[in-house]
Structure formats: C-alpha cells, structure tokens
C-alpha cells in the first residue's frame, strides 16, 4: 500500500503524518508512507486544502487532520 501525506510542512501536516504512522503500525500493514512537500506535486492531486491523505493515488481526505482511529478505518 502506498500512502502519501500532502502538505508543505505545516504543523497540521506533521500531526497527520504521525497519526498515519501510528495507524499503520497498529494495524501492522505493509505500507510505504511518504511526505509530499513539493507544491507542484501536491496540486496534481486537484486539492486546495492541506494536509491531505492519499492512499494508492486516491485522495481520501483533504484539509483536516484525522485521528489515528479514523485513519485505521480508511486503510
């Protein structure tokens, strides 16, 4: 599974990253988590609010920080 966290490095993006990491660990999924900080790449997903969570190329959520449990449900 490929997970991307889109965001230019704000506080909320870091929170989302940590929560995603925890969710992945707790569900012991084999996933690769990557931060996407480059604005050009971010915009290619068609979103306008960061942070955003992308799983296997699909935008799951944009503009808010999810809790660890909410992310688990999306995985």
């Amino acid at each position, binding site marked *: 599974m490929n997970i991307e966290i889109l965001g230019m490095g*704000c506080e909320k993006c870091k929170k989302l990253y940590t929560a995603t990491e925890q969710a992945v660990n707790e569900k012991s999924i084999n996933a690769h988590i990557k931060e996407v900080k480059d604005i050009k790449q971010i*915009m290619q997903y068609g979103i306008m609010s960061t942070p955003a969570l992308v799983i296997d190329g699909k*935008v799951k959520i944009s503009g808010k920080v999810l809790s660890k449990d909410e992310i688990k449900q999306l995985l």
Partner: protein
Amino acid sequence: MLQTIADTMVYSLLKLSSNSMLGTALNFFVYESIKIFLMLIIIIFFVSILRSYFPAEKTKKILNSKHHFWGNIIAALLGIVTPFCSCSAVPVFIGFIESGVPLGITFSFLIASPMVNEVAVIMLWGLLGWKIMLIYIISGLTIAIIAGIIMGKLKLERFVQDYVYEMKLGENKIPDQSIKDRINYALNYTKQIMKKISIYIIIAIALGGFIHGYAPADLLVKYAGKDSIIAVPLAVLIGVPLYSNAAGIIPIITVLIQKGLSLGTALAFMMAVTALSFPEMIILKNVLKTPLLIIFVAILFVSILFTGYLFNILI
C-alpha cells in the same frame, strides 16, 4: 446566570469581599472566562458544520464565473465561510488562478479569510459587544473588497511566480460527507482550536483583570487616545509579529479600551494581527514575486491605517 456562578465561586466559596480589589478582579476573571469559553465552544462548533459545506473547491467554482466588483464582494464574503488556514494559502491561491479566478478577486478572498476569522469575531462579540464586532466585520470586508479591486486594476499578473501559470490541477472528486462526518469534523476542530487557544485566553483575561483592577483609568488617553497621530501606525507595526494570537490579544485590548485606548487604534491593531503577519507573507512568497508581495503588504497597511484613523475620527 453566569454572574451567579461567578459570585458564588468568588464571594461565597472563596469568601472574598465584593468590595475588595482582589474579589472584584477574581470575579471579573471567572465570569469573563466562563462566558468566553462557552461562546467559543458553541459558535466554533456550528461554524465548523457550516464550513464543511463550503470547501475551497466549491468556492473556486463559484468565483471563476464572477467578474470584478461583484466577484470581489462575493470573494470577501466566501472568505468568511471557507475553511482556511495559512498553511493552505498556497494551494488555494494556485487553485484559484489556475481555474481562471481573476487575481484581484483572489486577493479579496485571501485578505478576508484570515481577517474575519471566527475566533477573533466571537471574542470581540463576547468582550466588546455586537456593535464593535459588526464594525470589525464590515470594515474587514470593505478592506478586502477595495484592496482586491485596486490590485485587480493594477494588472499585476506578471508578478505572480511563473510556475503558477504552468500548473494543471488534476481532477479529483473529494468524497461526499455524511452529517455524522460533518459533526465529527466540527467536534474535532472545536477541540483542536480550544486546545490551542485556551491558555492564551486564560492568561489574557487574567492580565486584563489585573489591569482592570489596578491601572489608572486614563492611563492611555495621553499616548494612545483618539487624538494621537502616531498611535495607529505604531499599533499596526506592533501587531504584525503577533500572528495567530488574536485569541490572547483581544482580552487585553478590551481592558486597554476601557483605560483610554481609542477604538480606531484598537481595530487597526487587531487587523494587523490577523491579516498582516510575517509567517503569512513568507508563505505567500511561494507564489508572489517580491514586487507583488510588497504591493500587497503596502495596500493592506494603508487600508488598515485608514480604517484606524477613520474610526478615531468618527467615534
């Protein structure tokens, strides 16, 4: 009812006299804190639900069909309801420009959005009353509209970073949200905001209570009263680095107004804190070339000064 709670706590439970300095100061602190916290929690919750219906993607669609004047007005109004944090300023800017929203209209949105934010508005209402809140909202919107119109007229498109025009936004459908999702989002958001600002509010109200009880009544009249020419620009300059602390600043402003700070100066100060901040400028530097950034700051600076002087003369 809140007053009864404050009275019971301070005068009955703590057995402080209602005539003592400490008693009145503590009573003021307890009452104001409970009131502001209740207002913030309730209103932020409902505003977040409302906002979940106005994602930036939708706002963009509304705005790219609008042109000048009306477009600026609608952009400023949408700036209030579209969820926005400065970390999203760049994607929002690119998204607007890419889809054909005129530059001036984009700026109306970018100015109104942080300036008329819910925390500042609720705190103004709670501490200074609805009239001052309304004056703040209306003058904030007016600045956003006029500054946007001027920037539109100046034809500044060449000062946007070149890559912005080369961007192609991918199409991506953001999944629809159920009512339950929206309520969850609102609860979480309210919790996050309260966690972030509570400490500032408490410190600020405590400090306010202290000044309220101990500082002489016309302390500021001489230096920062309505006749002082230097007070407005000084207030704006002090406000710029105090970004994102609108929550903590308003309780102190309230007390300073009671001690003689004039309303126009106070308004200018708050606008500088919310709309003219260093971190926001650094973020915008990603999409604006230096001349445009300077023009943007200059126009905002002048509009805020003008608003400050205007209300000092009017009120």
